[in-house]
């Protein structure tokens, strides 16, 4: 009997090994940030194209990249990385060029997103949403909070309330750079070293609670585990709408020393099981009304010019659309390669291990 069972199990195992390749005909695998997609849009797309959309989520870009490298490149169709990971995805061959003839709605995209610095000519990317990363803090704890990174980095401004920094090292290091006056997007090794030292000192403070990714940081703030943290403008509004009570005392702020602005783009992986459907999906998202529906759901600014008439009012004012003064201080996180990437990795691993 055991022998029969074993044979059965072996054949099941073999079927599983082989089966993972087939049966993906009518599926589209989407690898996206958490809380970033309106389920209604997915339903509408599934109905329109008779396909099942399988969603997987990541909390940070390093996490996304490692999943792709560990075999995800042949298992996801669409990924939604931020600007500074685009060049390294292209260079490592993890993504493929878009066939614009299959994406007529690309014409809806605002001019500045049709030729972004991180992907000249938008050969690989179609913009999804854009937003900012800022400081979220408890207004009861800090009634006169300065509009500054000092809320995180100056022990005199926040001597004894728990706070968290961003799990993505480039954002935390950028913040430290900005606080030290080197600018959020600094890449010069001396500035970085000083910033890394600041991060190590900051980590050593009693009230440092950890490195937390953007979305979980908001949960911690809402539950009172931390009183200051880093997160994204749209997520802040999204969760505030879901839980107005806990978020009544939380505010979002862009430090005057400068902070991050980002663009998330849809990209098709180089070994995507279903690239045709992926293009259809991108086209679907870039539709004027769907684009507006997406922004209205997740509270992020739309890169879709045609979507503007359908946007809710909240999307036309801060923090979704930063004030002009803030806009001038916002920077893209630099995309790193070669030696500068290695130097960054070393500095960041040094920060983590202290």
């Amino acid at each position: 009997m055991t022998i029969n069972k074993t044979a059965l199990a072996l054949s099941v195992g073999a079927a599983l090994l082989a089966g993972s390749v087939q049966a993906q005909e009518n599926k589209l695998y989407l690898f996206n940030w958490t809380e970033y997609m309106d389920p209604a849009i997915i339903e509408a797309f599934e109905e329109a194209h008779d396909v099942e959309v399988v969603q997987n989520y990541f909390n940070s870009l390093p996490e996304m990249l490692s999943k792709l490298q560990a075999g995800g490149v042949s298992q996801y169709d669409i990924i939604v990385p931020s600007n500074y990971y685009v060049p390294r995805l292209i260079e490592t061959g993890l993504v493929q060029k878009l066939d614009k003839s299959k994406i007529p709605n690309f014409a809806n995209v605002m001019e500045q997103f049709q030729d972004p610095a991180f992907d000249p000519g938008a050969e690989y990317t179609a913009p999804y949403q854009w937003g900012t990363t800022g400081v979220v803090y408890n207004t009861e704890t800090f009634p006169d909070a300065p509009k500054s990174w000092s809320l995180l980095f100056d022990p005199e401004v926040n001597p004894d309330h728990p706070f968290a920094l961003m799990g993505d090292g480039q954002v935390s290091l950028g913040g430290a750079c900005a606080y030290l006056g080197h600018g959020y997007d600094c890449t010069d090794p001396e500035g970085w070293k000083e910033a890394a030292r600041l991060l190590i000192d900051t980590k050593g403070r009693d009230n440092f609670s950890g490195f937390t990714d953007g979305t979980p940081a908001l949960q911690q703030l809402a539950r009172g585990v931390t009183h200051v943290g880093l997160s994204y403008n749209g997520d802040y509004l999204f969760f505030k709408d879901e839980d107005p009570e806990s978020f009544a005392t939380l505010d979002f702020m862009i430090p005057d020393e400068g902070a991050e602005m980002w663009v998330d783009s849809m990209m098709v992986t180089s070994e995507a099981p279903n690239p045709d459907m992926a293009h259809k999906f991108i086209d679907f998202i870039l539709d004027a009304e769907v684009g507006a529906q997406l922004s209205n759901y997740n509270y992020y600014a739309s890169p879709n010019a045609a979507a503007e008439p359908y946007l809710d009012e909240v999307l036309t004012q801060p923090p979704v659309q930063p004030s002009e003064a803030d806009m001038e201080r916002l920077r893209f996180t630099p995309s790193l390669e070669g030696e500068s990437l290695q130097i960054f990795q070393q500095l960041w691993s040094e920060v983590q291990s202290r």
Partner: protein
Amino acid sequence: MRKRTLKRGLTGFWWFTLAFLYLPLAVVVLFSFNASNSAASFTGFSWRWYHQLMGNEQILSAFANSMVLAIVSSVIALGIGCLIGYGMYRHRHRKLGWLIVLIYLPIVLPDIVFGISEMAFFVQVHRLTGLFQPGLGTMIIAHVTFQIPFVALIVYSRFVGLDPTLFEAAKDLYATPAKRVIHFMLPTIKPALISAFFLSFTLSVDDFVISFFTAGPESATLPIYIWGAIKKGVSPEINAIATLMIGAVAIAAIISLMFSRRRQA
């Protein structure tokens, strides 16, 4: 007199340790019924988080993955491990040092090294040949690898505990090796097989690190889902799934207790 103080002190220490062992689990269970999503204060009883669980397709599919993974890997490991266990017994007078080393390797290798080796290897082989796409298949392979030694050792020790003359008798009784296996060997080692299966199953359900590194996009198991949920920061729902898993363990504990009682009686 002094002895009694010692005994009393030990009894106190025993209850203290029990509290230490069960407090974290009790907190998880308690807060799974919390009406609010606060982690610090219990504001009232509610089934809210369980209702939320029921509608969550990801959790249901994670549960299904956990079960398929545990059952399939345990069955494969049982077959392969059984053969090794018997081979080790039958040829125990030979020098089999290399085999012992090989069998202990999966046990002593740190989880993280195990998991990362498999991941790096599967990725490389997949790049070259297209085989071993990360997913349930690769997870099953990895789980079988760490289950084989436990099955082999349990089966081996069962054979060692048998009276060697039994084998001679079986040889006289049954003409063919196949009959010997079916009518003598399997029934004799049945208890070992059952306990090996349950141990393999438990090891598989309990594993997180190795699964985490060998999983594919659609093969998240319950522990992987819970890990993701903790990292994401949504707490009360995790309490509810965790409570269900603790409940399953409690039932298993009670069953095993009843078995051990019966054996004594």
